[in-house]
């Protein structure tokens, strides 16, 4: 047993519950939120250190043996995702303190935020598919409320779409789980992997692949794949910037995580078919997403469309399926979550300064906010894949993996999309930073020092995993190797000799 495995779930839950109980004191809530995320960060780093040193760790909840009880599993991929959650969680928690209005706080913002983190961490750690569903629901429910909290018109219009499509996804997930249990009689992922690996006849493999498709759709909706992403651009730009930022950093990533997890562990039949499906979906997702971004003139909506195109890259890594590709996907997810969150925080600050997200009405920020300009450039150029920032290494690894695999179409699409990404980042830069503030726009308002700190922290992480890509990518490479060969995972969970 390993205590560090439950901390990422217990800490946010404890913080969330305490905040709920302290619903009368805003000050206590704010303190608890910050303390909770700080503790979570600490726990996450401990977890990563332990997993990195001693290999895959499991914790059998309730002391029941796998596959009968629920098992928490932390391999490097999980541990990295937990660290990611904690880092983003801490930065956005801080940003929330300065940017979220009092009324949202009074109505449980901070508690919901903690529960969101709890759900995300649970999803990253669980080794049980139904338990994954539960964590998905925790995360979703919290995100539903955060999305709708404040009840402004745009928000409600967005929330309706967000909620409905995600509920459809949950229903599909649930159906897929039921069918899977009916077929395999177990829910433990390692157990499923072991059992499915022993199937050799065509009808059985066909059934497994059919179920795999159902999971692909269910997770694909959450991940924001084409043509199931519509909820995202419809809603992500409606709640306050802090909410958009945490959503963009974590939620779709949970979907991608789930895809990578089940398709490297459980559903490994029909690799050729799945490869074709994944690479096709990845290419379409990239292209449609980035063109959506190109069409936007709203700071946040532009960024929201980019989330989609970037999910395409992660899926491309999964589709290519080699060690390098999976490492690239892991590194990519980590990089993009950090950079994207930072950019959303920048957009929120731009809006705080000039009262709008409309790029046509923004301007002059290079002169008026030099630090903000720098803090925009780092994640923006990183996202566009410019070296030596983190996005470059992500792009390079996927391009190299694609060329090695001979998947030239995917590589061409990935590169073209990266150019369009640069194009749209530059659009923001030109409109909001370089262009003089248009006549008639609101002049910059109040001081915003506190808003910059969390952005700076995330930008630093981007720079650190870029310049320090040696160790950072090395970690991702080890995670990728674990994903590629799940025998250790299965053996560790089921407590067998490998």
């Amino acid at each position, binding site marked *: *047993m390993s*205590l560090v495995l*439950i901390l990422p779930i*217990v800490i946010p*839950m*404890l913080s*969330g*519950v*305490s905040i*709920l*109980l302290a*619903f009368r004191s805003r000050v206590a809530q704010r303190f608890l939120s910050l303390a909770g995320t700080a503790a979570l960060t600490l726990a996450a780093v401990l977890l990563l250190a332990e997993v990195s040193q001693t290999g895959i760790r499991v*914790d*059998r*909840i*309730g*002391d029941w043996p796998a596959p009968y009880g629920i098992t928490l599993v932390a391999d490097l991929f999980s541990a990295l995702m937990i660290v990611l959650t904690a880092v983003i969680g801490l930065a956005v928690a801080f940003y929330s303190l300065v940017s979220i209005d009092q009324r949202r706080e009074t109505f449980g913002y901070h508690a919901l935020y903690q529960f969101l983190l709890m759900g995300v961490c649970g999803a990253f750690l669980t080794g049980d598919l139904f338990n994954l569903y539960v964590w998905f629901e925790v995360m979703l429910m919290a995100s539903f409320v955060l999305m709708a909290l404040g009840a402004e018109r745009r928000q409600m219009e967005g929330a309706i779409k967000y909620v409905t499509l995600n509920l459809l996804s949950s229903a599909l997930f649930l159906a897929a789980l039921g069918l899977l249990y009916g077929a395999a009689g177990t829910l433990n992922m390692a157990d499923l992997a072991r059992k499915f690996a022993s199937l050799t006849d065509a009808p059985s493999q066909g059934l497994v692949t059919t179920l795999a498709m159902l999971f692909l759709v269910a997770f694909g909706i959450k991940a924001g794949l084409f043509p199931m992403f519509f909820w995202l651009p419809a809603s992500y730009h409606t709640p306050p910037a802090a909410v958009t930022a945490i959503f963009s950093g974590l939620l779709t990533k949970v979907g991608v995580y789930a895809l990578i997890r089940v398709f490297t562990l459980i559903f490994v039949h029909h690799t050729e078919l799945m490869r074709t499906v994944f690479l096709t979906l990845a290419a379409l997702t990239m292209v449609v997403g980035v063109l959506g971004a190109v069409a936007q003139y709203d700071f946040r909506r532009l960024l929201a469309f980019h989330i989609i195109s970037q999910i395409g890259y992660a899926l491309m890594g999964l589709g290519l399926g080699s060690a390098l590709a999976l490492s690239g996907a892991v590194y990519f997810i980590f990089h993009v979550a950090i950079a994207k969150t930072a950019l959303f925080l920048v957009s929120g600050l731009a809006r705080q300064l000039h009262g709008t997200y409309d790029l046509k009405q923004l301007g002059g920020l290079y002169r008026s906010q030099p630090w903000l300009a720098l803090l925009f450039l780092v994640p923006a150029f990183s996202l566009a894949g410019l070296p030596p920032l983190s996005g470059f290494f992500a792009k390079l690894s996927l391009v190299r993996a694609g060329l090695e695999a001979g998947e030239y179409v995917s590589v061409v699409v990935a590169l073209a999309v990266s150019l369009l990404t640069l194009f749209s980042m530059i659009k923001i830069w030109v409109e909001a930073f370089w262009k003089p503030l248009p006549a008639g726009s609101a002049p910059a308002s109040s001081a915003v020092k506190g808003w910059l700190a969390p952005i700076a922290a995330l930008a630093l992480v981007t720079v650190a995993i870029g310049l320090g890509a040696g160790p950072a990518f090395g970690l991702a490479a080890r995670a990728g190797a674990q994903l590629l060969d799940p025998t250790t995972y299965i053996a560790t969970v089921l407590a067998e000799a490998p």
Partner: protein
Amino acid sequence: MNSLILQTTTRYLLPLLLLFSIFLFGRGHNEPGGGFVAGLVAAAPFALYSIAFGAREARRVLRIDPRWFIGFGLLVALTAGLLGVLLGRPFFSGVWTYLVVPGLGPIDLGTPMLFDLGVYVGVFGVTLTIIFAMEEAD
């Protein structure tokens, strides 16, 4: 809904349903029942009360803000999970003892039952928070 019959019935149902809920809770580990169902049953009379007399009146009878039960229930449930950890065992490990009740013999008591109690309290709070809020919707 200002029905005299409903109002009268509600007054009498309140203690009865609360007792029934405790019964359901108690047998849940061995027979159909359990914390969730019991919590719903316990909430039912207050829900009826709010329909009969209005949410304001129901809140007065309950005295405590139902939102508080949510947090408390969750906390109890989490604590039940953590007790095993304090004894050096995994999260949610069952810790059992027994209580000798005169006439009934030994009764097993364990953290899973404490956990179920958390569920009971939480569900009670959740149901009433929702019902009251919807009752009060303008």
